[in-house]
């Protein structure tokens, strides 16, 4: 019960409070600030739930493996620029291990890969974007497992979503306000990369979802991890 209250408290009280504070106190550059704070705060309930929840060592270590795999995946396919399986692995993690694991795998992947590629104010946004993609994948897991077409569409949309979120961020960041013209310019200039994201997500989901899913299911059944009724 306490967990739920904390969750709703953060979502319903803290986030609006940050937005109001930002709007009233800091006259300029508020948007960039507020957006960072909101992105960070929206990760907090998931982190808190994981800390409070009864998660065994195996759950933790599988989460660590999935996170590490999504980061290593960036190296495995480094010969193809921007063609990365990170989103696909986060989505698979959400589909087969549930929403919490999906969100955390996304958020932690962003955090860890930025230890290598450089932390910055963009880190909370990447954490949030990938986390949400993992969470939504868990909500849609039945559909995604059933149909390859839906899986493909989800991959394409996920690529677009990630790209748009990052463009919103760079607009706020470079302008201090949400300048629609600059947003448009960012969208257009990022378009080729967005296309690669969308294509790579679809390709990796098609190629990886089934085999990786089987492996995850096998391991969870074999060791009795992440089972609903244990």
């Amino acid at each position, binding site marked *: 019960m306490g967990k739920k209250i904390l969750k709703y408290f953060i979502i319903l009280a803290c986030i609006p409070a940050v937005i109001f504070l930002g709007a009233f106190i800091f006259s300029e550059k508020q948007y960039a600030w507020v957006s960072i704070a909101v992105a960070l705060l929206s990760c907090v309930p998931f982190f808190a739930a994981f800390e409070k929840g009864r998660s065994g060592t195996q759950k*933790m270590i*599988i989460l*660590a493996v999935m996170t590490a795999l999504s980061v290593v995946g960036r190296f495995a396919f480094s010969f193809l620029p921007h063609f990365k399986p990170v989103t696909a692995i986060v989505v698979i993690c959400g589909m087969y291990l549930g929403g919490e694991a999906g969100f955390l795998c996304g958020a932690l992947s962003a955090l*860890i890969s930025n230890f290598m590629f450089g932390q910055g104010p963009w880190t909370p946004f990447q954490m949030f974007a990938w986390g949400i993609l993992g969470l939504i994948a868990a909500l849609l897991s039945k559909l995604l497992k059933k149909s390859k077409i839906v899986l493909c569409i989800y991959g394409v949309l996920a690529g677009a979503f990630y790209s748009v979120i990052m463009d919103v961020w760079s607009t706020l960041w*470079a302008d201090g306000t949400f300048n629609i013209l*600059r947003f448009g310019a960012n969208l257009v200039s990022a378009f080729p990369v967005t296309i690669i994201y969308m294509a790579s997500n679809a390709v990796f989901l098609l190629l990886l979802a089934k085999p990786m899913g089987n492996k995850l299911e096998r391991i969870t059944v074999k060791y009795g991890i992440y089972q609903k009724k244990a």
Partner: protein
Amino acid sequence: MGGGRIKAFGNYHPIVLFTYFVSVIVTVMFSVNPVIAGCALIGGVSFCAVLQKGRVFLQSMAFYLPLFLIIALTNPLFSHNGATELFFLNGRAVTLESILYGINMAVMLVAVIYWCKCYNEIVTSDKFLYLFGRIIPKLSLVLSMAIRFIPLFKAQMKKISRAQKAMGLYSSDRFGDRLRSGIRVFSALVTWSLENAAETGNSMRARGYGLKGRSSYSVFRFRKGDGILIGVSLALLAAVFIGTGLGKTDFDFYPETTKIPCSPVAIITYISFGILAFLPFFLEVKEEFKWKYYISKI
């Protein structure tokens, strides 16, 4: 500079370092004042120059200088606020204020990027984990396991890929083949790592992970110097916050740029922030001279 010697600033306690970086970056992003932004940029760039090897630093300069210009010069294209019209482009006014705003924005953004670079050099992942180990113990264990897995998986991936090459699988350089061989190697890695992980998890449980009374190992000790540094930086930060909070350093670009505030309070604020921003640079340079001096005595 840099290279041979352990970084002086990096020797401080993680809490001190984290507080320092957060306070500098927060101040830069909050304040709309060209003096503060300029101090932060020069402070950050010079700190970075001491931390990084010459070539790496110059390479980053070659990337960020054009970025600086792009941010500074594109603002007038997107923003037509401001009273002083310089000329018209496609029937839209290009104003002096929007150019100045763009330059200020560029200074601030590049400053934050350079401070983040310094943060990455100084607050390494082990310090980060130490800091958050108490607040989020489970997640930071997951993080540290994942960080350890990365080199392990990379090594394993190399082994698998060599084995597959030796078997003559997908050895051509065509896009499809490379993608398929990548997937194949990756898939083998997934099997291996998951099986390994489940074993490790069992082993951890067998050794009593999660029982009460777990102690943790830490290499960081809070020394007198840490207390001094955190005290000084918090005092300077407080001075800056009071100055900006009182509105003494407010600066407006639109509709017309105001004068840069020069009241005594504003000047104290600038000086405090200047000291704060150059603190690590001075510490590094001091240590460099000490090092050179001792070396020369040998």
